[in-house]
């Protein structure tokens, strides 16, 4: 045993002495280096640390120099419910292939499995985080990538659970291909500039699958947000691109596929909203382009408050939503044009693919329900359909100007 270790020591020495600047240190439960913290302290800046399979009971491991730490076959770092497990405080650190579990929990401190604090160009990849308070916490970082990690926790209470991937005051982060479940928010951004978030799967979180606050200029695409307590919230931001995401199965009286609040100049395109209580909710938002989304089998496709203005809903497919549009005012400051509405019953005599009579997305029945919620039980009844039909011919209750003048006859592919 001693022999092999001295061999590896010699190899390490040789590597260093041959000027590669990359020392390699192996950590293993059987020694000689049995602690990750110890290995970090031993390592030269820019060195490699390889961690063999096993369970390491360590917490508050601090990385203060550029390093690559790689786990072989997912060695477990058990934080023993004390504080943060791994803290990165240096630039160009890579952490790969660990299973990290049992962080501390606190109402005062945000303990995380991995905290990246004021660092640049990090890579946190392919780790499994289990039963953690916060998962991966980025504070005042620049660039850097969080990729292909899985994060799962089991506290079903919103107040006492932490976020899966938490970004605070960061620039240009890339969040790719992670799977998050059972956290408070799957992915949380606050003052994050130009974040790129894609290919993530955020589900069964207590609050939001993705939560955007004061974060301008980012983009998120190709993500799946499923069955989160309150869906996805994007608030107080501008120039955000939201593309090709799937928002589905977000159910509950305050649950949204996508909640938009105080958003400006952003694009929502090519997304699919499937079976959410409210697919898109908008409050005090303006200049949004909602284009070519599939909005199918939701309770309400769009709930738009009158505080929202100059938003453009174009070429979306509204398919068998219980209600297409809900609003709280008889006036309308938004544009609905050229969408496909499966509830449209008009005709197209000139065969140009556009219905000859406008479509009114706010149904009479949705107004009845707003006044007398118990009448919900009459949904889809023949009597209600007759009332709706009468209302379409002679609108009395529904907003006069909230209409799609050019409803498509065919679903937009």
């Amino acid at each position, binding site marked *: 045993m001693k022999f092999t270790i001295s061999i590896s020591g010699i190899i390490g020495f040789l590597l260093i002495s041959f000027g590669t600047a990359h020392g390699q240190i192996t950590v293993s439960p059987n020694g000689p280096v049995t602690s990750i913290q110890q290995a970090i302290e031993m390592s030269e800046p820019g060195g490699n640390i390889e961690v063999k399979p096993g369970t390491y009971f360590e917490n508050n491991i601090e990385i203060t120099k550029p390093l690559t730490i790689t786990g072989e076959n997912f060695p477990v770092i058990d934080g023993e419910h004390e504080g943060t497990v791994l803290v990165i405080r240096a630039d160009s650190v890579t952490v790969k292939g660990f299973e990290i579990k049992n962080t501390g929990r606190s109402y005062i401190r945000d303990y995380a499995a991995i905290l990246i604090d004021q660092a640049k160009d990090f890579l946190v990849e392919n780790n499994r985080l289990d039963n953690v308070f916060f998962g991966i916490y980025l504070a005042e970082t620049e660039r850097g990538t969080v990729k292909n990690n899985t994060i799962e926790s089991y506290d079903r209470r919103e107040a006492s659970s932490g976020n899966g991937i938490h970004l605070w005051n960061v620039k240009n982060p890339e969040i790719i291909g992670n799977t998050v479940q059972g956290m408070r928010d799957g992915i949380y951004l606050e003052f994050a500039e130009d974040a790129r978030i894609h290919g993530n799967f955020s589900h069964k979180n207590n609050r939001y699958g993705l939560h955007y606050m004061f974060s301008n200029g980012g983009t998120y695409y190709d993500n799946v947000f499923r069955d989160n307590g309150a869906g996805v919230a994007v608030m107080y931001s501008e120039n955000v691109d939201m593309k090709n995401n799937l928002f589905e199965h977000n*159910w*509950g*009286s305050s*649950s949204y596929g996508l909640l938009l609040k105080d958003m400006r100049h952003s694009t929502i395109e090519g997304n699919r909203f499937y*079976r*959410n*209580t*409210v697919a898109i909710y908008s409050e005090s938002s303006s200049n949004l382009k909602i284009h070519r989304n599939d909005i*199918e*089998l*939701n*309770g*309400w496709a769009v709930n738009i408050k009158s505080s929202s203005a100059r938003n453009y809903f174009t070429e979306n497919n509204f*398919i*068998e*939503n*219980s*209600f297409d549009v809900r609003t709280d005012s008889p006036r309308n400051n938004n544009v609905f044009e050229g969408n496909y509405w*499966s509830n449209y019953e008009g005709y197209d005599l000139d065969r140009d693919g556009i219905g000859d009579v406008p479509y009114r997305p706010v149904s009479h029945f949705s107004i*009845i329900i707003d*006044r*007398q*919620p*118990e*009448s*919900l*039980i*009459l*949904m*889809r*009844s*023949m*009597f*209600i*359909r*007759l009332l709706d039909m009468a209302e379409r011919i002679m609108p009395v209750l529904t907003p006069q100007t909230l209409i799609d003048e050019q409803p498509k006859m065919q*679903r937009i592919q």
Partner: protein
Amino acid sequence: MKSQTLHILSNEWKTLLRGKWVIGYGLIFLMLTDSLLRFGGGGAEALLSLSNVMLLFIPLVGMIYGILYIYQSREFVELLLTQPIDRKVLYWGLFLGISTPLMAAFIIGSMLPLGWHGILILDGSASAMVLGLGGILTLIFVSLGFVLGLKFYDDRIKGFGFTIVIWLFMAILYDGLVLMLVFTFGHYPLERFVIAVSMLNPIDLARIMVMLEFDISALMGYTGAVFSRFFGSNLGIFTAGGMLAIWLAVPTWLGLRVFKQKDF
């Protein structure tokens, strides 16, 4: 006993199929479902349109079909009654013999296009729900037609009149009355009452089950505690399903009773 019932049942199947009327009925649903899928769009859309048609027309067709059978086969039924056979056996044989072909026509007619357009696999549970509900509604309303035919055995005008009135009432007016109630007593807590009232109408029951399948997301948005509990858990589907079973049992049992006691 059982073999006699089956004997009558198979005989009815044979003559009804030869009558082609039932086959035509199945073909209508086949063409309807196919064109809904071909020109209408996705599976959910087609299934919802199909369920709208089903909720409206199956009750009417079922009742008319049931009552018409009684009126048309009066002499034959009387001849059968003079044979050494239990009336109960005869009733089940005749009732199942004419209602199941109609039910099968709807289910097979609608299922084939759903199958070849792949919807059965994509939206399996929703398809099963719509087809099953159509089947149960067929049985319920054929037996209601039977009861009406037996009750107004000698007065066909009255029999058909009642059929139309009952259909209009159950399919359309009933919901208008519920809506009126809701608006009249709007300031009282009405949820429980509204659920109970809807359970009394089999068409509403079937509609609620369709709702539970397709509009669950909207139902979950409703904040009232009773509705949320009812629709949010399995309670809703089990209660509605149970009530539908009762609705199936009551008219068939009533039909049996009338049939057993009737002077022909």
